[in-house]
C-alpha cells in the first residue's frame, strides 16, 4: 500500500509540472526546505529499524551455509533446486496474464467512467475496493466453491482470481493518473481533430498515463508473486507455495530466494522513481530557462 501512495503522488507531482501549475512546484520547494525537528528524526529512525532489521537478518542468513559461515552457496544453489524453475515460470506466466487482463479491464473502464458517467466514480471506486473489504480466506473459499471443475484443471484460472484481488491496486493507480490529467479536454481535442476512440486511447491517453500504468503493473506483479493461500488451496505450486514447501528442506536457500525477489522488486521500483524524478527535474530546468 505504501507503494501505491508514493507512486500516485509522484504521478500527480509530475503531471502538475506537465500542466504548468506553478503552485505545485512552489509547494514542492517549500516542502523540501522544511527542516525536520529531532523527534521526527527519532520516529523515522525507529520505523527504519523496524523495517531494516528483519531485512538485514534475512540477507545475513541467506549468505550463510549450514555451518554458519559466509558463503554464496545458497544463492548459487537456487537454480538447481527441484521445482524452483517450474514454480518461477508459473508465477511469471500468471503475472503476465493477470497484468494483461487487469489493464484491459481497468484502463477502458476508468476512462469511460471519467468521461461519460463521472457521477459513478465513487461507486466504481468502492466496488473495486471490495476485494480488500472481505477477508481473503472467505473470498478464496467462496471462489473455490463456485468455480466449475473444468476451470480448476488449468493453473491459469488463478489469474482470473488474481485480477479480482489486484483490482483495488490496479484501479487506484490508473485512476490517480487520470485524475491528474485533463482527460476530457485532451479527448475532445483529439476527437475534434478527427481522432477515433482507438487512436485517442492509443496516442493521447496511454502515453500520458505511463507512470500510473507502470506503478499499476508493478503492484499487480508484486501481488501475484506473493499470493500464497489461493494457489496452495487450489493445489498449484507457484513461487510462494514452492518457497513454503521448500522452507522445511533448506532455510538458507529459501531465504535467499525471498531476498532476491525483494531485491528485484526494489530495484524496479527505484528505477521508476528515479526516472520520474529526473524527468521532473529536467522539465523544471527547462521551464526556468524558458521563462
Amino acid at each position: 500500500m505504501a507503494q501505491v501512495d508514493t507512486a500516485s503522488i509522484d504521478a500527480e507531482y509530475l503531471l502538475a509540472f506537465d500542466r504548468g501549475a506553478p503552485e505545485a512546484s512552489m509547494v514542492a520547494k517549500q516542502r523540501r526546505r522544511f527542516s525536520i525537528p529531532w523527534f521526527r528524526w527519532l520516529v523515522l529512525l525507529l520505523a527504519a529499524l523496524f523495517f531494516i532489521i528483519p531485512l538485514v537478518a534475512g540477507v545475513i542468513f541467506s549468505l550463510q551455509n549450514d555451518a554458519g559461515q559466509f558463503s554464496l552457496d545458497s544463492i548459487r544453489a537456487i537454480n538447481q533446486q527441484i521445482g524452483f524453475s517450474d514454480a518461477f515460470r508459473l508465477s511469471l506466466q500468471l503475472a503476465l496474464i493477470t497484468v494483461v487482463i487487469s489493464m484491459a479491464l481497468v484502463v477502458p473502464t476508468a476512462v469511460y467512467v471519467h468521461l461519460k458517467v463521472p457521477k459513478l466514480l465513487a461507486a466504481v471506486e468502492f466496488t473495486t475496493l471490495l476485494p480488500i473489504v472481505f477477508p481473503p480466506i472467505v473470498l478464496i473459499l467462496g471462489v473455490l466453491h463456485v468455480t466449475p471443475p473444468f476451470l480448476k484443471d488449468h493453473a491459469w484460472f488463478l489469474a482470473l482470481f488474481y485480477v479480482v484481488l489486484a483490482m483495488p491496486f490496479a484501479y487506484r493507480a490508473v485512476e490517480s493518473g487520470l485524475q491528474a490529467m485533463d482527460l476530457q479536454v485532451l479527448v475532445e481535442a483529439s476527437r475534434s481533430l478527427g481522432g477515433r476512440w482507438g487512436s485517442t486511447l492509443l496516442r493521447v491517453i496511454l502515453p500520458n498515463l505511463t507512470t500510473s500504468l507502470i506503478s499499476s503493473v508493478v503492484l499487480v506483479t508484486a501481488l501475484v508473486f506473493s499470493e500464497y493461500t489461493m494457489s496452495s488451496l487450489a493445489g498449484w505450486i507457484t513461487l510462494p507455495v514452492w518457497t513454503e514447501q521448500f522452507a522445511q528442506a533448506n532455510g538458507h536457500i529459501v531465504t535467499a530466494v525471498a531476498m532476491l525477489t525483494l531485491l528485484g522488486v526494489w530495484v524496479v521500483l527505484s528505477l521508476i522513481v528515479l526516472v520520474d524524478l529526473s524527468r521532473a527535474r529536467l522539465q523544471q530546468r527547462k521551464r526556468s530557462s524558458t521563462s
Partner: protein
Amino acid sequence: MTPDATATDVAPTGQAAMPATDTPSVPTGAGVELRSLSRQFGATLALDRFSLTIAPGELVALLGPSGCGKTTALRVLAGFERPDQGQVLVGGRDVTRLPAQKRDMGMVFQSYSLFPNMDARANVGFGLRMRRWSGAKRKARADELLELVGLAEHRTKYPHQLSGGQQQRVALARALAIEPQVLLLDEPLSALDAKVRAELREQIRAIQQRLLITTVFVTHDQEEALSMADRVCVMRAGRIEQVDVPAALYARPTTAFVAQFVGVSSRIEASFDAGQPVILGQRCTARPGSASRETSARLDALLRPEDLTVTPDHDGEATVVHSSFLGGTTRLDVLLGATVLKIDVRSDVAARLSPSTRVRVGLHNDEVLLVEHLEPEGR
C-alpha cells in the same frame, strides 16, 4: 451545397444582408446554421430555442455572462453535445447526428489542451496524422502553420516548455492544420495576462481574415467581442438577446440587458410631454426596441457616457463626485438627484471639473433607448 464546396460562385447561405469582409480572397470556411437548438441539463435550460446563421468566412462572437450557454452552443456545434431539439447545418448539410470526429471543426479550448506527450510540431500534425498524411507532408504542413502563428523556432518544444500564450498559439495552429470548415474558439485567451491577450486577439483576427475561415468565438469579455468580431451575438439564459455588428450593438442596443452588458450605461427617468419622452429637459424620440408606456407606467432612458454632456454651472443641479483619468478622455461620476451618471469628457475639459464642482447635464443625441424603470440604488 456539398460540405466541401468552396463558396466561389455560391451565395452565402441565405444571408444576403451579411456584412462581407472586404478582403479579396475567397472564404475557406462553410456557412453554419443553428436552428432552434435546445439543450437542458437537469433544471437548467442551457440553450433555449437558439437560432443563429453564420456566413462563410464570418467571425461571430458569442458574448454573455457566465452560465448563459455560450460553451454549450459551441459544444453542440462541435458535436460534443447532442441538442435535445433543433438542427446544426454546416455548408447546408445537416450534421446534428454526426460525431465530433467527423465534423471537420478545429477547436481551441479555454484550458491548455495540447497533448503533453508530443512536441509542438507533432501536436499541430496530429489532425493530419488522423487523416493518414505521410510523415514528411505532415511535418511540412505543421512547420508552415507554426510559422503562421509565429512559433517557427519553437517547433520541437514540448507543451510544458511553452508559455501560456505560446501554447494557445500552437493550439490554434493545430486547429487550423486540418483546414476545418469552422473554427471554434472557447475563451482561448481567458487564462492569459492582459498584454498577451491583446496581442493574441489581434493575431487571431488577422489570421482569420487572411484565411477567411468561418469562426465562432466565445467570450465573456465585451471588449474582446467588439474588437474582433464581424458580428456579436449577445446571449442571456440560453437565448439570443441581440445579434449585430459591433458598432450597431453598442450604439443601438435593443434591450436593456444588452445596453447594460455591452459598454457602460446610465439611467435617467423619462418624463412625457404629449406622448414624447423628455430627458434632461430635452425632447427625444424613442429608439426601436424601446419599451412602450402601455407595458410600464414609468420608463428610463439608457445613456452611454459619450451621449451626455456636462457644463460647469453654479446653479446646476448636478455635482461631480468622482473622476477617473483614462488617457484622452476622463470618466466623470456625476450625481443627479439620486442617480450617478457616468459621463466621458475630453481630459483637458475635465481638468476644470474637479469633484464637488456643480454642473449642468445635457444630451448629445436625442434618440434614446427607453427601458422599464428601475429605482436607483442608494449610494
